[in-house]
Structure formats: C-alpha cells, structure tokens
C-alpha cells in the first residue's frame, strides 16, 4: 500500500506484515552461514529465495576451526550448502556453479584449482565435483571418503553416516582413479571387503564405522 501523500503522524507508517518474518529468516541464515562478504551472500540468498531455489544457508553453525589444513575457506559445511543447492541435477553448469561459489564468498582460485583436477567444458557431474571438493578438504583418501559420507548421508547428524554402497564405490573409484598413488589392486580389495560388509547387512548401505576409525576426541 503506497504511503499516503501526506502523513501526519508516526502511526500512519505502515509496515508490511511479512517483513519481520523475512528479516528474521534472513538474519538467522546470515548468522548461521557467517559469510565473509555479507552483501554478496545476501544477493545470492535473495535471488535464490526469489527463484525458489534451495538457499545457500548452512544448516548448522560451523565454528571456524582454529587450524585448518587448507586456508581456502572451504569447509564441509560449505560443501554441504553447495550440495544442497546443486544435488537435484546430475550435471551442473560451470557458470552456475561459479556463481554459487562466489555467493558463498569462496575464493575463485580454489574453484579453478578444483576444476583443474578433472577438466571439463561446460558441465560437470555434480558428484564428481563434490568428491573433488571433499578431497581438497581432507588429506587422505579415507578422509575424503569420510567427508563424502557425511555430506551425502541422510542419517541424522552424529549418527552412522550411511550411504548406498554403489555411490560409495563410484566415488571411491573415481577418486582413487585420479590419485596416482593408489594401485588398482588395493582398491579392488578394499571395495570387495566393504561390499561383503554391506551385503551382510542386507541394506547395501555402508557407514563410516566400516572403513574409518574415528578419532575419539
């Protein structure tokens, strides 16, 4: 409702009723996501909101880790955000991905670096990108797989992060294929043992506990 031409008193100022809610959600998202560049991120947030896309919001606050292996600012939470945004399609356009990357205020060089690991033109399979991102997070293959599990799982946080074995094996094979250190024989062996475990459970899901001994902190 447009403001009347002449307003006489403060009570005539009208606040749209949806405004507080929008503001609140936005504020909460901002607090959770803790973007480096609020403006950039806000632009991304609102454009996604207006389009109806998944929002670039972290689900949980991620306290910045004091020691980070890589100083890129890419964290598991951010990868999760990206995953949330992009997982509905199998292939993502690079431009789109780049824009999302920027909206998260992540350094673009990192983006390029990741892409260099597995070069492609226009589109990239999202799972691959995710795997690459995870590998850039952690040091070893196992750590990368752990991250993948935690990102992809549907189990609640803290629970057994389980993903279907096929996905797991695909990613594993992809990553170990890229990594020249791992001999294929070892890979096969590893996969075979894991396959047995997953089949024995009759749900073809593989969890963290199967291959990763978590460090108890």
């Amino acid at each position: 409702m447009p403001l009347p031409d002449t307003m006489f008193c403060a009570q005539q100022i009208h606040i749209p009723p949806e405004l507080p809610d929008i503001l609140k959600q936005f504020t909460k998202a901002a607090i959770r996501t803790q973007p480096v560049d609020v403006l950039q991120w806000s632009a991304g947030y609102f454009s996604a909101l207006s389009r109806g896309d998944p929002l670039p919001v972290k689900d949980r606050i991620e306290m910045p880790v004091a020691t980070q292996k890589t100083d890129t600012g890419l964290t598991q939470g951010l990868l999760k955000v990206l995953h949330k945004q992009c997982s509905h399609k199998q292939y993502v356009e690079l431009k789109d991905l780049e824009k999302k990357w920027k909206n998260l205020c992540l350094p673009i060089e990192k983006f390029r670096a990741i892409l260099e690991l597995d070069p492609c033109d226009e589109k990239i399979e999202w799972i691959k990108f995710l795997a690459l991102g995870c590998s850039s997070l952690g040091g070893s293959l196992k750590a990368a797989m752990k991250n993948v599990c935690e990102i992809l799982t549907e189990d609640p946080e803290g629970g057994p992060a389980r993903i279907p074995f096929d996905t797991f094996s695909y990613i594993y094979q992809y990553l170990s294929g890229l990594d020249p250190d791992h001999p294929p024989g070892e890979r096969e062996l590893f996969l075979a043992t894991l396959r047995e475990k997953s089949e024995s459970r009759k749900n073809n899901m593989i969890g963290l506990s199967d291959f990763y001994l978590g460090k108890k902190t």
Partner: protein
Amino acid sequence: MDAGPVKERPVHRRARGPAGGRGYEPEVSITEVPSGNPAGRNCLKFPPPGGTSRCPATGGGAADSLQATRGKPRVAPPCCAGPLASHPLPREPRPRASQHPCPWHYLHVSDFHDSLTPTCLRAHLHRRGGSSTPDMASAMTDHNPRAAEASGTYTYTSRPRAVPCQRRRYRDSLLQPVDESMTYGNIMYDRRVIRGNTYALPAGQVPGQPDPLELQRQQQARRKSLARKRAQAQLRPRTPEPVEGRKHVDVQTELYLEEIADRIVEVDMECQTDAFLDRPPTPLFIPAKTGKDVATQILIGELFDFDLEVKPMLQVLVGKTIEQALLEVMEEEELANLRANQYAYEEIRNVELAEVQRLEEQERRHREEKERRKKQQWEIIHKHNETSQKISARAFAQRYLADLLPSVFDSLRNSGYFYDPIERDIEIGFLPWLMNEVEKTMEHCMVGRTVLDMLIREVVERRLNNYEHKEDTQPSMRSDDVFRGPNTVADPSVSLELQESTISQSQKSLLDKHSQESNPTEEGEPVSKNDQGEPKESGQEELSQPEGSWEQESNSAGGQ
C-alpha cells in the same frame, strides 16, 4: 310534625371515580345532629335534616345546593361535600353487590329528576341498605307525613324504622386497617397457629394415596349434591322471566323491614394507564460556540519527517529481529548439538554393544568347546575304567571257574547223573522183576510146604488113628498108598517130610533161579533128606536121584 331525628340518608352523589359505592357523606352543614342514634348505629351522624333542609320534598333551602336543584322529593339528593373525615362511609342505600344493586342509586343526581320519580318509591322499597330504609321510610314517612300533613292524617311519635343491623358496614377510618379479629386473642389459643412438630406432617397428609381417593370421593359427593340441587332447583317453581323491558328486583316483603348488612357491598373498579411512549432521543447537545477562530499554514516538510519518525520503528524492528534471530539460532544450535551428541553416543554405544555381543559369543563358544572336551575326556576315562574292570573281572572269573568243570563232572558223576543206560535199565527193569518172581516162587514153596505139612499131619493123624486102630490090624499098607499118592517117601513122619520137600522141590524146579532165602531151607531139607535118605530104600531111589539131581540143582542154585 315531629321533625325528629329525621335521619335522612342523603343519597350520595356518586362520582365517577370513587368505588365501592362510597360516596361522600352528605354532610350538610346541618344544624341538627341526630341526637340519638338509637339503634346503636355507630357510624354516622346524619346531618340532621333540617326540617326543610334536606327533605327533598321540601326542596327547601338546604345548604345542600344540590338538593336545591331538585324539586322532587326523592331519593338521592346529592350532598355537598361535607367533611368526610368522621363519616367516611356514606350510609345510604347502597345496593349490595351480590344482589341486584339498584342501578338508580348511582345515577347522577341531576338525572334523577324525572326518571327516577316513579322508581324511587320502588327503590326505597327494596332497598337493602338498611339505613337507607329508615331514611326512605323516613323520607316516605316524611313524604307521607307531608302528604299526611298535606293530608293531615298521621304522625309518629317515633318513626318506624327498620331493625338496624348490628353489623358495622363501614370502617371507622379509611386509614385503619380492617381488623379481622376484633379482639386480640391469645396466640396460644389461636386456631390458626400450628402446634406440634413442624417436621412431620399430620397423619392425614402424609399418605398421599388415601387423600386423593378421599378427595375424589368428596368431589364426587359434591358434584352429586350440586347436580341434585340443580335438578331440584329446576324442578322448583320459579318466578317467570321478566316481561320485555323490565327487570326483576329483590324486595323485602316481611312485615318489618330489616337492614341487611351481612355482606358488604363491594364493587370492582378498574383503571388503566396509557401505554408508555418511547423516550424520545436526547437532542444533540451542541454547546454554544465559544472562542476565537484562528488559522495557520503548514508547509510540506514541517509536520512530519519520515526519517525521524521511522527511526524508532526501525530500531525496534531491526533490533528485535536480530535479537530474536540470534536467540533462535542459539536454541537451534543447542538442540542440534544435543541431538548430534545423542546420535554419536548411540553410535558408540551400538558399536560397543556389538563388540560386547561378539565377545559374549566368543566366550560362549569357548565355554561350550571346553564343556565338550571335558565331556569327551571324561567319557574316555570312563570307558577305560570300565574296560580294565571288565578285564580283571574276566581274569578272575576264569581262574575261579578253572576247575569248575572237572569238579562239576565229578560231582555229577558221583551223584549218578552219568549212568550206563543198559545197566540202569537192567537195574530198573529186570531185577525187580526177578525179585518178584523169586518171591513168588518162594511163596509158592512156602505154600506148598504148608500144604504138605497139613497133609502130612492129616495123614499122620489118620495113620495114627489107623495105627491105633490097627494096633489091632496092619499098619503099613495104607501108608504106601498114601505115599504113592502124593509121590513121596514111605517113611511115615520122615517120608511125609520128604514128600513135602520133594513137592516143594518139584514146585521149585519150576522156578528158574533161586533166591538166597530158599537156600537155607533147601539146604536144610536136603540135609535132612540126606540124613533120612539113607534109611529110605526102595521107593526112594527114584526119588533120590531126582532128589539128588535136585539137590545138585539146589546146591548149585544155592551155591550161586
């Protein structure tokens, strides 16, 4: 003329309003007050009729103006409003409500002029307001005496009057409430006061059932009586209906008129107010205008500055938003953390549980394995023991029974279980038979000897006898016969014996073998025979040879 206490009851003018037939007492400012109220009429003092004052007949100059208006002697001279106070109730011909009130009493005085004239007489004839009658009577008598005066026939020393009614018809004062019980009674003896317990109904009321029955019966009885009365009333001869234009009126026809006042005349009056009107709306109150009008001009930005006004709002908005958002985020974080911890814990727990189960399983298996091994071992040992026992038992038994067999056989043999069947057979079968036969032979021998002995005896006796006879004769011939007969030796005593023996021997020769029993006898006999054989001669040689053979046989038999 005895103007006497003309107690004329002035008929009250009945106003419209007043009810109950109470009019104003015609209190004429009359000079005379009836001095005596002889019948104890306790209410009213009648304005004494001045001789001329009231009497309508006279129509005289009563102070009663209304009277003055009438020229007719009659009833209902309206009385001027006199002081009512002490005489609240008009004593006057008041028709009783219950019975046919004389309507003409209530007519306006002014109307009385003509129409009532004829009826007036009738009226006061039937009037029940007793006090009126005397008035009327008095009026009449007034009338009459006037008429009488006019005619000059009769005067009363004391005017005839109706028997006054003892009952008061009017209250003393309007303000005084009617006293129902004239005397104050002792409440203790008042029948209306309930005595006794108030918590229990009297017996008649409590059982509801008989009462309705009784009530019903009573009602029926009442109805029957009513019906009976009605029937009777119908049957009773009644006065015929009044003629057209007329009306029946009750009248006292006794000799002496009586003022009847047991019922107080009551008349119901009603009045009604108008319907309420709605309250009209309050007229708008517009105060008068006061003050001065003044004007001023406002430019655009003066009254309202948006930024200024909006600032507090924004502060609140943004501040609250951020605060709320923070709070919510904190809460969510906390909850999520808790949940994450829970799940992590559960994971660990599950893992540990799995581990525990595994260990348990292992333990169980170990235990079972151990049990099995132990059992196996135990069985082995058991078997071992058993076997050794068996072996030792066997050895011992063997040794124990080693010479069982020979001893057994020996003992059996000793007990005669092993026997030669032929021998046994001979022993069992043959020898008894042999013995029997031997016995039989022996018996035969014995029997033969006995018989021989008897024979010999007989013979000897006979011979003796004969000898004795023959002592006279020859003794020897007969004996040869006798001897030859039996085939024995001739010698009498010895020969008999020999014969006996030979008989027995001959008998014996039939037997096969001997028994050792016969041996001594045979030996004896042959011995005797041998001894006595020598003496025998001729006849015995034959016999002796066979004897000898027999002897030999018998010897040989005896030798055996």
